[in-house]
């Protein structure tokens, strides 16, 4: 199976996500360009962290108009797995694939640190390799990561078991300690913490690998091995 990592102008965790999938997970991965009209032959899409188009407007507000995002939306509608990390999460809420919004951290400052996340549900292709209640050590690095939504949406997210990760010590003021959520169809997840930064023992934690391993496992079940077109990648 192949992972596609979208490169927007200003993406800066694109290579890290690619490296985590390729080197740490040992899977095929390729880059998708923001101007491409299609996601090509990939089986999962990752929207990486960074500052797409500079994020001088609201984070992700411009990225949602890029040609690749129209393709990503189609891909998601057809059931493809889409993971948005940090800026990728912001883009997913901006383009309506996920509910709510991400606003400035309560401290009004950028925060970079390792945080503890509780795995709230394992009924998802992004967390099935974790265990319910398992605590993951994964870093955050964002200025606008405070998850915000109206009460009804928050209730709905919880009632439908769509909160995947919660902060153990809420670093940014996110409502109900939400760190990562699913869409209703459970094939799109956005999370502010960076699993790709916790995928290599040298980086101090490999808890983030659970996210990529879950995706790989979910794809392996959905696709018989013969349908898996894995080309060598330079």
């Amino acid at each position, binding site marked *: 199976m192949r992972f596609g990592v979208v490169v927007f*102008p*200003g993406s*800066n965790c694109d290579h890290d996500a690619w490296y985590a999938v390729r080197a740490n997970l040992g899977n095929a991965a390729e880059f998708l360009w923001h101007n491409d009209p299609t996601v090509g032959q990939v089986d999962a899409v990752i929207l990486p962290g960074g500052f797409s188009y*500079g994020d001088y407007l609201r984070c992700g507000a411009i990225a949602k108009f890029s040609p690749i995002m129209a393709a990503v939306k189609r891909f998601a509608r057809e059931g493809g797995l889409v993971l948005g990390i940090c800026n990728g999460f912001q883009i997913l809420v901006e383009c309506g694939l996920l509910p709510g919004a991400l606003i400035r951290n309560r401290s009004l400052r950028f925060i*970079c640190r390792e945080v503890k996340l509780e795995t709230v549900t394992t009924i998802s292709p992004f967390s099935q390799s974790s265990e319910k209640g398992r605590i993951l050590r994964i870093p955050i*690095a964002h200025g606008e990561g405070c998850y915000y939504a109206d009460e009804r949406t928050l209730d709905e997210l919880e009632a439908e078991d769509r909160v995947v990760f919660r902060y153990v010590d809420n670093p940014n003021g996110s409502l109900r300690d939400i760190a990562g959520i699913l869409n209703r169809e459970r094939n799109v997840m956005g999370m502010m913490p960076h699993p790709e930064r916790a995928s290599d023992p*040298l*980086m101090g934690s490999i808890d983030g690998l659970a996210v990529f391993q879950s995706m790989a496992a979910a794809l392996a079940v959905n696709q018989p091995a013969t349908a898996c077109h894995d080309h060598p990648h330079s």
Partner: protein
Amino acid sequence: MTTLTPEIIAAHQLTEQEYERIVTLLGREPTYTELGIFSVMWSEHCSYKSSRLHLKKLPTESRLVVQGPGENAGIIDIGNGHAIAFKIESHNHPSFIEPFQGAATGVGGILRDIFTMGARPIAVMDSLRFGPLDDPQVGARNRRILSGVVAGIAHYGNCFGVPTVGGECVFDPSYNGNPLVNVFALGIFRKDEIFYARARGVGNPVIYVGAKTGRDGIHGASMASAEFTEESKQKRPNVQVGDPFMEKLLLEACLEAMRTGAVVGIQDMGAAGLTCSTCEMGSRGGTGIEIELARVPQRETGMTPYETMLSESQERMLLVVEQGREEEVFQVFRRWGLDAVTIGVVTGDGLLRVRENEVAVAEIPNRALADEAPIYDRPHTAPRRTAPMEGPRFSSRNLTNDLKTLLAAGDLCSKRWIFEQYDYMVRTNTTQGPGGDAAVVRIKETGTSIAMALDGNGRYCCLSPREGARLAVAECCRNLSTVGALPVAATNCLNFGNPERPEIMAQLVEAIEGMAEACSFFDTPITGGNVSLYNETLGEAVYPTPVVGIVGLMKTAQPVTIDFKLYGRPIVLLGGLGRCDAARFGSTQYAKVILKRLWGLPPALDLDYEKRVQTAARDIVSAGLAGAAHDVSDGGLAVALAECCFGASGVGAAVDLDSDLPPEILLFHEGPSRILIATAQPEQVARIARKYRVQAPVIGATMRGSLRIRRKGVVLVDCDVKSLRAIWEGALEKALEG
């Protein structure tokens, strides 16, 4: 045409003699535009006219040095076909005038210096100095400057996608009117991918890339070459505005353009903008450059040639491309949505020829600008010194309270409030981030790691610039050795006052000589750097503050960190308890924070012993014998021990020191050549220490939950780690947010 009156010439900070030299070099009077061009190229900032003579004393070569001073950054060979480029630069003046943009563009400038050589930036560090946050007169301003500078660095580095992996932050009234913001950057490339800022090949097109040119930053270089006065605040428009997103695009596009093979030479437009990049590229390439200003992309209308040539608008690059292959390069820039325009051509006549709508507005030999700037042997006497040699009598009432006070002091407290605003992990290479003795990034391409550290000590240098500079180099190397890295090369940023004052010039000369001696001794040549003079406000100079950045090579592995992890582990003080007399105690943090005085001399340094301690430390660390390691520096042994207790595990320590030194001196003196090591195998550590004839007493062991320090059985300090840690961690935020 503007007549060049003596007032106009003086306003360009050119002396009468310098003006005459210009007339001689040109064989005629310069035009107004030419005067502007000379004024920036001959400014202290660009020409190093006061320091050049003395900078020659620095060692610049070793078997690893690929490129020494004179290019955009120094380069060293790290093996496996790869090299690193690195440099430190100051942005002091702009950061005082406009902290956020001043610091942000400081980061932008040094990043361009790195990637203009073809290297991808992989780490940034900052050395910052501010006035005290609780200063009764200007505390509020100091707090605003600190917050602005940190936010500016974060804004630029985070968006660009380079990790800010470490640095230092010091507070002293000497920086009240003139903060120091020094930024270090390091990048990696293959050895066969190095690009130089040279214009070669007559007829090759000169291409302008990146942001459009505006009126911002005009005279930035000459602003950085004058003292601050009350009017300086009106110079705010001289500070440029940074756009890290544009810089990120430039990075990707330039590296991609370089891979086409069509790029002959490339230089960023930093200080003195278009002027500096054109004449320096021509001068280095032994060629001339002719440009047409009407083709320069402009953000404002009606800009004069003078303004266009002197603008310091950010995020611009100048490329020389092989004739006929322009389209390959344009294609890359189009893909990244960037403006790229041919604005001129390389010529064979050695002249910088500037035209506007085909009318010549300047015609100057490149060499006159870049290499014929005046060099001054400015008079220097004895270094300025205001501190007495003898200090007060003192005797502590409560050493535990003294330790708490020190841990809450600005220089020693946790800098978490600062470094958590920096993305120090992006690129997933940071194996040791901020808060360690040195930062460490692994190199995915080679399977090795690079360690780096910044050190400066204005307080020591104020007492003895020569000894202070040697100590800075020694400490920086010690920081690297403590994490297991071999120091191999250095870059420096020399922050001083007005060199036209002989007692300030003397500080500069002595500091350079001290640094030269230590860098030669440790075989860490200076491969480049920056001199920042005129750091004065209303005649009050900052402490002489040479800052050194040193890089070290090591194998990739889990780094040894400062914090004690397990209890019951013996603690070795490699190097021993050290010595210190009353005069040498006057430079310590204890003298500064507790006694509120400064006197005497910096700690005594024995270079040979220092080197042996460091070699032993590297052997111990690379043999896997150190569970924790931390160098003893500011605040002395007691502060270093406390810092070792501030890890996640909350492990403390109990030590008993066999010494006759007075308790205050024993606990808090800052004698160098000492490293704390927690180890499960003290005998093996001792064996290595013996090999290098280095003392290595076992002073105690780690224990659960508290820090207890005795001298010959008598308790000096006893406190639970939790409360010490709370003081240390909360102090900066408390000082900033009241």
